[in-house]
């Protein structure tokens, strides 16, 4: 187990020994024959689940099975916007739990996840947008979440390069601002949770694809994998865009459609944008990374798909939106483009809970906006698995809501992919 603590002293000590003595951040063990809990999917959510199972519930005989490399799915492909200003109480409290965990995460994990609370602006471009924003800000405040409505003048004062001209095609009428929102370093989140989970005894097994779910009557007994059969009492599936594929292995149908979602980074620039700007109206979102790249996200491709790329014309739409807001970026060159596969649910909210199969739990449907929820999602999912019962924060997010009709419609707060 890895006990090496990262600190300024460790940095100095390793610097004088030419950085040749850093130990591996986590082990790469051979899978055991049996675990108490198997987590399928080594994204941020799966790794966080394993960490909180070990940390909060004392369940340490746990394996995380990842078909590729950890964080290689949506966790490593997203635009890293973190906020909690969702409309409905159920969603707001879940995302706010996550935001609270973000605020202490680097200390908790002894790993710098570079969480930067630089504020998130959600722009409005019409009277109706502003009414929706005022309603959402009011709802946020009632739930104890920091939120403000700001005017075009206040936006311009904070972001001098933004175009607030009334002659714009979609003039900016105002925005909501969550100052505690921001961005984090996506890879570091996966690596930090992996290292901390490993230190508590969790086996992280990469290059191990789950190809079948074994069950006896109505109870799971284990998984078939590309590295052999592994048995377990409980299985938590956290595979984002592949949730329907895993559900089908258990004979279940889920209310999900997987879509490609793209993002881009530009060539590095000197610091020019020190906050996060999102707009549902023109459908764009942008921030600047610590390396200086503009990080820009697109909308989902219309069709369902598992190809991690996405359509060419989507690039043009995404760039149009950014140029509309920041005309001076028109000559910036884009450096890289990539795609992830997001699992979109009918009410733009996640599905976290038990399934009709005993011992089988699913955490999915985060769609275009689950990075912000990584710690909170792991926290409630670990509780759900350990107690075989959801935590009150995720009780409303079960699969049953599609039968009962108690949907939690977050299309307004989640409409722009993020």
């Amino acid at each position, binding site marked *: 187990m890895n006990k090496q603590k990262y600190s300024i002293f460790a940095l100095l000590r390793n610097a004088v020994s030419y950085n040749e003595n850093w130990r591996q951040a986590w082990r790469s063990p051979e899978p055991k024959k049996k675990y108490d809990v198997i987590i399928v999917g080594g994204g941020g959510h799966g790794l966080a689940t394993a960490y909180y199972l070990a940390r909060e519930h004392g369940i340490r005989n746990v394996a995380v099975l990842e078909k590729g490399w950890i964080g290689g799915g949506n966790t490593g492909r997203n635009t890293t916007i973190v906020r909690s200003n969702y409309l409905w109480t159920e969603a707001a409290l879940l995302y706010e739990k996550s935001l609270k965990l973000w605020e202490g995460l680097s200390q908790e994990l002894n790993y710098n996840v570079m969480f930067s609370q630089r504020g998130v602006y959600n722009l409005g471009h019409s009277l109706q947008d502003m009414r929706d924003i005022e309603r959402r800000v009011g709802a946020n405040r009632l739930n104890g979440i920091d939120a403000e409505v700001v005017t075009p003048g206040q936006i311009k004062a904070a972001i001098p390069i933004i175009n607030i001209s009334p002659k714009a095609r979609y003039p900016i009428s105002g925005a909501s601002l969550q100052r505690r929102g921001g961005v984090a370093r996506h890879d570091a989140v996966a690596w930090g949770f992996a290292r901390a989970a490993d230190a508590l005894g969790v086996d992280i097994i990469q290059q191990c694809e789950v190809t079948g779910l074994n069950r006896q009557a109505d109870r799971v007994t284990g998984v078939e994998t590309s590295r052999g059969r592994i048995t377990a009492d409980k299985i938590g599936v956290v595979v984002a865009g*592949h949730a329907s594929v895993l559900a089908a292995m258990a004979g279940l149908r889920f*209310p*999900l459609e997987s879509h490609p979602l793209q993002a881009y980074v530009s060539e590095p620039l000197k610091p020019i944008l020190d906050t996060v700007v999102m707009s549902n109206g023109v459908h764009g979102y942008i921030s600047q990374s610590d390396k200086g790249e503009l990080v820009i996200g697109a909308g989902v491709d219309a069709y*369902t798909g598992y*190809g991690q790329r996405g*359509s060419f*014309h989507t690039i043009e739409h995404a760039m149009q939106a950014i140029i509309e807001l920041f005309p001076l970026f028109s000559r910036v060159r884009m450096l890289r483009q990539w795609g992830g596969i997001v699992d979109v649910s*009918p009410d733009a909210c996640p599905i976290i809970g038990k399934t009709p199969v005993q011992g089988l739990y699913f955490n999915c449907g985060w769609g275009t906006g689950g990075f912000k929820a990584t710690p909170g999602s792991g926290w409630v999912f670990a509780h759900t698995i350990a107690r075989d019962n959801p935590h009150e924060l995720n009780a409303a997010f079960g699969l049953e809501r599609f*039968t009962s009709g108690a949907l939690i419609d977050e299309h307004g707060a989640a409409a722009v992919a993020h």
Partner: protein
Amino acid sequence: MLLIKCPWCGTRDESEFSYGGEADIARPATPDTLTDAEWADYLFMRKNPRGLHREQWVHAHGCRRWFVLERDTVTYRFSATREPG
């Protein structure tokens, strides 16, 4: 950009079309006798396969007619295209 073959107009750019989701989902013939679970299945549950998918498209900026396509959701290759019904 996908190249999509409309059964009436031939092969055109994806941006001329709108996507209509999974094909072959028929509205239940006797809605008043359906259980909640059957409603949920009809309204929300989808196959969402990784592989061959039968799906509906409409040639929105062309002949405006609907049709059914079979597409591989990993390679995005279309294997069959036909008129609905």
